[in-house]
């Protein structure tokens, strides 16, 4: 399906996105581990320890103004060709003023914590709880890191690739007949 890109939502977008990358490169050249543009979407991979300062810059810089955090989620890369570090935490940023999206990512291994961005965008609170619940990625400095969708005493993290789709831990003891 090697068709060329047919959905161009906004003509100025391609240029505007390079402005985001330009500004980021000026400020954080060493922090940007990887940059990818696909289907008109920009992804920037950061090291976990750079995440919060980059986010704060993206929110506060008047030319970028990423004031709206759309979404935070995770990906378990266990079955991908490049499986290490295992987990990816994905942030979808949005600028209400410039109508621009940006995807940030950090990658961590099992047990390694990601700094919370709740200090930058309050909305990250529940999203990070969900990633913690379903992937088992802890967030450093999170004000209320509890499971959110699964019961508190649940074992395992369902969205991990090595968590079976159909089997579930036993909840009750069967009485002998």
């Amino acid at each position, binding site marked *: *399906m090697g*068709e*060329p*890109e*047919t*959905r161009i*939502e*906004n003509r100025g977008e391609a240029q505007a996105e390079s402005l985001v990358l330009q500004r980021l490169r000026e400020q954080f050249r060493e922090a940007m581990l990887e940059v990818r543009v*696909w*289907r008109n*979407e920009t*992804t920037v991979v950061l090291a976990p320890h750079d995440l919060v300062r980059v986010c704060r810059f993206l929110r506060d810089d008047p030319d970028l103004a990423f*004031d*709206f*955090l*759309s*979404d935070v*989620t995770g*990906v*378990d890369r266990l*079955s*991908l060709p490049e499986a290490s570090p295992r987990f990816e935490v*994905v942030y*979808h940023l949005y600028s*209400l003023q410039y*109508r621009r*999206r940006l*995807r940030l990512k950090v990658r961590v291994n099992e047990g390694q914590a990601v700094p919370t961005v709740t200090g930058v*965008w*309050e*909305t990250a*609170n*529940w*999203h990070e709880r969900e990633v913690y619940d*379903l992937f088992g990625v802890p967030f450093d400095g999170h004000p209320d890191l509890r*499971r*959110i*969708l*699964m*019961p508190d005493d649940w074992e395992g993290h*369902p*969205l991990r690739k090595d*968590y079976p*789709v159909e089997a579930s831990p036993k909840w009750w003891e069967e009485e002998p007949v």
Partner: protein
Amino acid sequence: MTATRTMTLNMGPQHPSTHGVLRLVLELDGEVVVKCVPHIGYLHTGIEKGLESKRFQQGIPLTDRMDYLAPLSNNLALVLAIEKALGITVPERAQTIRILLTELTRIKSHLVWLGTHAMDMGAMSVFIYCFRERETILDLYEAVSGQRMMSSYFRVGGVAVDLPPGFEDKVQAFLTAFPARLAEYEALLTANPLWRQRTVGIGTISREDAIALGVSGPALRACGVLYDVRKAHPYSGYERYQFEVPLGKAGDVYDRYVVRMAEMRQSHRIAIQALERLAPGPINVADPKLIPPPKHLLKRSMEALIHHFKLYAEGFSVPAGEVYQAIEAPKGELGTYLVSDGGNRPYRVHFRAPSFVNLQALPAMVKGRLVADVVAVIGSLDIVLGEIDR
């Protein structure tokens, strides 16, 4: 100094005003809410996990079950994301059908909101009226897909089947009758002093807090923030339609009510335009690798038989990569984050459910207010637990 004694009250998960299975742990000082902690997850069905083991086209019925009041919006969010990853655009007629039906879905979803919201606050009759109109839209759903609620009508590459004969007339009849009905509901509530007392100045949230909390949809627009995905990042051809984005000012329960009522009028307007645009034409992309060939070709064309076999035996694959596609669902920004590893099943799908994010703003809205206001505020947020828990 005597210590203040507060009482902890469990509201839900079986409370009628929580619109499903939401549990709120309220800390009360008399009747005043000191603290509100929502507990969710009672309806968690692992839809995102389930999608990973289904082929791209097979995942659509699962999305119906998220926001079950707006199943077609969920379908659209998923198929648009897959189509974006594939790099395809569906034909004009399919786009128009999608817009027509998702706008009817918006009206239908808002009608349930209005009916239940009013009922929560004691206005019984509105509920009955709203469900009468909703039933007409459900009939339209049934006519196109055979299902009243879980319609799963959209497909990657277009829609499942063409509209049935006489469908346009049925839609036209509904669209003709609807404005007068809407005016009736407004007459019951908008200027009603009881309604205003229960809603004006209740559950207020400031513009800044709403943005920081990621609130979207009518709840965000009620604070005066102009953000509608249909305008900001048009999809399915919304840029060709004339409509306005209603805005509120105060960010309270009343403004959310006003915004949604106005949105139904705009959806009605868009639906009329879509009906006018509905010209004959293909309803699917002309790509036999995505869309099964017509049945009559199977006995005559070897190629068609091969495509048919391949499609039903293994589906199609999507190039490796990742996309985020947002749509303006009735509740707000519904985003699909899709990761493909190049195979015939999604590697990961995540839905940014608007209700999930909007509910997070509830504690900020009810703090320091009365228990009765909590009911009003939940209703005004228009949450659906199926989507929150996924």
